[in-house]
């Protein structure tokens, strides 16, 4: 289930300020003598059985994945799936039990204390669900905290933090204290603090879960905008599928600490790896996610050659109007080669009926 098919950097600006991430065989087991479990038959037990047998709890179970520089990689799962533990293992805020993590050229898991500090200071920043702001410091000094820790002079770090405050839209609130701000604005401070050190990678741990829906949407758009502007590699933890689909270049789905599926949003929705994922994605408006690749049929010799031409990565909803307006079926062409045909029927099935493939409809319990 390792996904090495990382897509090229998607941002149009071509800026690649990001570093890649490589995670191999990562384990985190909480409990006494946890390191002795890996490699034994006990490691194969389910979470509940292991707890009953050894008193240890598996947080992350044999996870491997890669993130390309500049990519937005979303880790999603329900609460207790180990996603927050996983993201903390990446910079060893929680010490992994086993496995390697590599960020850029640094192997995080074998770093010394001081190397790790350097890494946290310069390479990787994190945004937290509960903000983690310091109530006794003004906004500007909260933003500058990472720079202060590096030993930058007050004048210099305040100047730098001021730029970032502007970037996240907090101008005018520099001298406020965190508890004078709304939740959304506090998280902007958290975001600014993470950006201030100009890291090559940003980690987000359910940053918007504590915010109300409208603010959450604003903040998601903010992240998309920032990603376009600064092009950092991002690892984004969420339990909200819509958020995952909206932000992620690729999505990794975790359950009980294990990887269930890694793929692009349309892969996850179009070809769920198992019933768990299918169930998870069953409420998604499919036309917003699926591309023509998922609805086209193989071309036949008698197909009309006059229909509109589109690429296979066009989202169904965006293709719908042109396709329905034309009397001829859409011709799906990749690299000058005809790869498929999309009829009106195929489009309508997705847009109007929201008909899921039969496999995805089983057990359509309300999960979320």
């Amino acid at each position, binding site marked *: 289930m390792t996904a090495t098919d990382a897509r090229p950097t998607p941002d149009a600006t071509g800026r690649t300020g990001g570093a890649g991430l490589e995670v191999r065989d990562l384990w985190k087991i909480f409990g006494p003598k946890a390191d002795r479990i890996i490699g034994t038959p006990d490691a194969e037990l389910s979470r509940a059985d292991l707890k009953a047998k050894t008193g240890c709890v598996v947080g992350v179970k044999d996870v491997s994945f890669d993130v390309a520089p500049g990519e937005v990689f979303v880790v999603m799962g329900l609460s207790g799936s180990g996603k927050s533990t996983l993201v903390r293992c990446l910079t060893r805020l929680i010490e992994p039990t086993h496995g390697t993590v590599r960020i850029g050229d640094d192997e995080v898991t074998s770093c010394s204390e001081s190397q790790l500090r350097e890494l*946290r200071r310069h390479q990787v920043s994190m945004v937290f669900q509960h903000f983690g702001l310091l109530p006794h410091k003004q906004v500007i000094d909260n933003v500058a905290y990472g720079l202060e820790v590096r030993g930058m002079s007050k004048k210099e770090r305040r100047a730098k933090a001021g730029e970032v405050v502007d970037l996240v839209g907090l101008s005018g609130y520099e001298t406020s204290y965190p508890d004078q701000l709304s939740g959304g604005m506090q998280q902007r401070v958290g975001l600014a603090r993470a950006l201030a050190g100009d890291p090559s990678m940003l980690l987000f741990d359910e940053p918007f879960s504590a915010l109300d829906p409208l603010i959450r949407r604003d903040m998601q758009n903010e992240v998309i905008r920032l990603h376009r502007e600064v092009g950092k590699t991002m690892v984004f933890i969420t339990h909200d599928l819509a958020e995952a689909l909206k932000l992620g270049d690729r999505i990794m789905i975790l359950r009980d600490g294990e990887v269930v599926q890694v793929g692009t949003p349309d892969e996850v929705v179009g070809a769920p790896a198992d019933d768990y994922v299918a169930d998870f994605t069953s409420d998604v408006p499919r036309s917003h996610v699926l591309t023509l690749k998922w609805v086209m049929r193989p071309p036949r010799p008698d197909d009309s050659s006059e229909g509109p031409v589109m690429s296979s990565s066009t989202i169904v909803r965006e293709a719908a109007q042109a396709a329905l307006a034309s009397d001829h079926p859409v011709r799906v062409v990749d690299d000058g080669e005809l790869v498929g045909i999309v009829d009106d029927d195929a489009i309508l099935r997705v847009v109007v009926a929201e008909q899921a493939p039969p496999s995805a409809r089983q057990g359509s319990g309300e999960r979320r």
Partner: protein
Amino acid sequence: MSTATDTTTPAVDTTPAASPEPEARSGPSRWVLVVAVVVGWVLLWLVVRGQDTLQLAGRERTDVMRWLGEFRDGVIASRDTNALVAFTGAVGEGIRTLFGELQQVFSLPAFPRPVPQIGWLGVVALATWAGTAVANLRIAVLVAVTFVSYGVLGYWEQGIDLLLVTGLSVAAVVVIGMPLAVAVGTSRRARAVITPVLDAMQTMPTFVYLLPVVLFFGIGVSSAIVCTLVYALPPLIRIGGYGISAVSTSAIEATDSTGQTSWQRLRKVQLPLARTTIVVGLNQSTMAALSMAIIASYVDGPGLGEPVLSALIRNDVGASLVPGLLIVLTAIMLDRATTAASERAELAARGRGLRGRARTVVLGVGGVVVLVCVYLSRTYLPLAAWPETSLGRDLADTLDSATDAVVGVLGGAGEALRNAISYGLLNPMQSLLAESPWWLAASALVLVSAALGGLRAVVPTVVFGTGILLLGLWHSTMLTLTMVLVATVLVMVIALVLGVWMARSRRVDLLLRPLLDAGQTIPAFCYLIPVLALFGFGRFAAIAAAIVYAAPAAIKLVADGVRAVPETTLEASRSTGTTSWQEITQVQLPMARGSLALAANQGLLYVLAMIVIGGLVGAQALGYDVVLGFSRSEEWGLGAAAGITIVLLGLMLDRVARAAADRTGGRVDARSRFTLPRRLSPTRT
């Protein structure tokens, strides 16, 4: 350090462990068993009373006491050979020298000058300025009033000395206590090691520290400061450590992710976020220091305790009133100043209040004024030495006649109360405990503790009881125990009545709570004065003082516990048509039993501490033996044996009370016993 924070448990499987049910009570109730034991005891007592009471004849001393006396002589003799004794001796000498220097600056004539280096005007100006700097202008006024009162009333030297002892001790508390507080707050292992030590330190009655400290550090100010330091250390470590460990994990995690070192985490995150709590700890430590600095007058510690003590020994209430009042004023000043300082710290962090330039200007101008005052007080004699006034004597006379008037009015009632309790409760209990043969009393105590707390109570009773027996002060112990038990029962009666009343009536709460807060601020020693005036020399005065001293804490614990009963439960019970009495006895008190157990436990320890101090005002028994040990070197062995006996008695009572409380289902856990000072205690509004 900054990486492995394995404490973050995964968000799975959070089913809370089923809370242990209190042991099912089967068979006859515990109280029936207790009564049965007592009845049997009384029947046997009728037959064998007066035999084997182990009462020591006048000058009779046991081998243990002689051995302790020899131990003391050995320590004194080894001053030049034993490194530890030499070290403590040197520390004591250092403290004496430092204190002497400070006295010459502030309170005593600095030879060849006829007055101290800085005269009163300079000292008052300095103190007022310091009050402005750490707190605010209102505090500065309070400070000025207090200092001027010292001088005008003729206790300048003692007042300043008391503040010097308290101040030096608190400074040492901060230097020693803050690193320990950080250790307790950041390391689970350090907490596991340090907490039991603090428990033991705080269970011990203050009085008991004095004897060994005097032996090692010498009599006078050196011992006073060391005792005060030891007594004042635990609150800062406990409360400060609690504050540091309670800093939100999300703030720590978020700042760790920026790559801070553990030193940066401590200095920039943990300490600033815990600042308010740490200052509360400092406030508690300061008040403890003041309280102990006064008690240290028993070992010739300088300060305002001295005139009070000598007046009490002479049974001269009038002479103790003015210095007693000044002690109260000092306590109020220190309490308000440290509280305001914590609030200022908060405001300053927020950038509110007088700040920045304005503050700098005020303090700068003030500083110049201070320098001028210091200069003037060094130049002009009237500004250096307080002019002789009759104000102090006049006030003393007024207070004395006022006291006489009050005693005249209340004396009759006081006498009636004393007689009622003495004849109704105290005398019968005393004859039962102290006139029983030791073997009868001992077995009865073991049986009673078994009935109350089961095996967990029996073991400490046997162990500590054996220790007491071996030390040879069984009879005195029984006398002290009688007073402690009677006083504790009375404290609990008062606490139940007033506590429930406060919990049920908002108005009563508003009226009483400030009084109780004030009562907890005043050093214990001061309670002896009014009590002595009202009840006269004797054991009842000590009991009354103990009740006054222990009641505020107990009342507040009961009130908070009863108030914490959920309103929904009360509504449910009211909807079934209960009377107020039924509501109190069937719902509120049973649900508050944890707080009641805690109140009884605290009350017991407070009462013991005060009864021992009351040895001085005629309570006799163990407290008196300790005093004797201070005052006559040939009785040191007796005093030390009495001191150890008090510790053992305290431990025994504490353990039995805790075991009994656990059985009731009301846990007395060490943290709630000590960490929550009055300003942190959970008060529901």
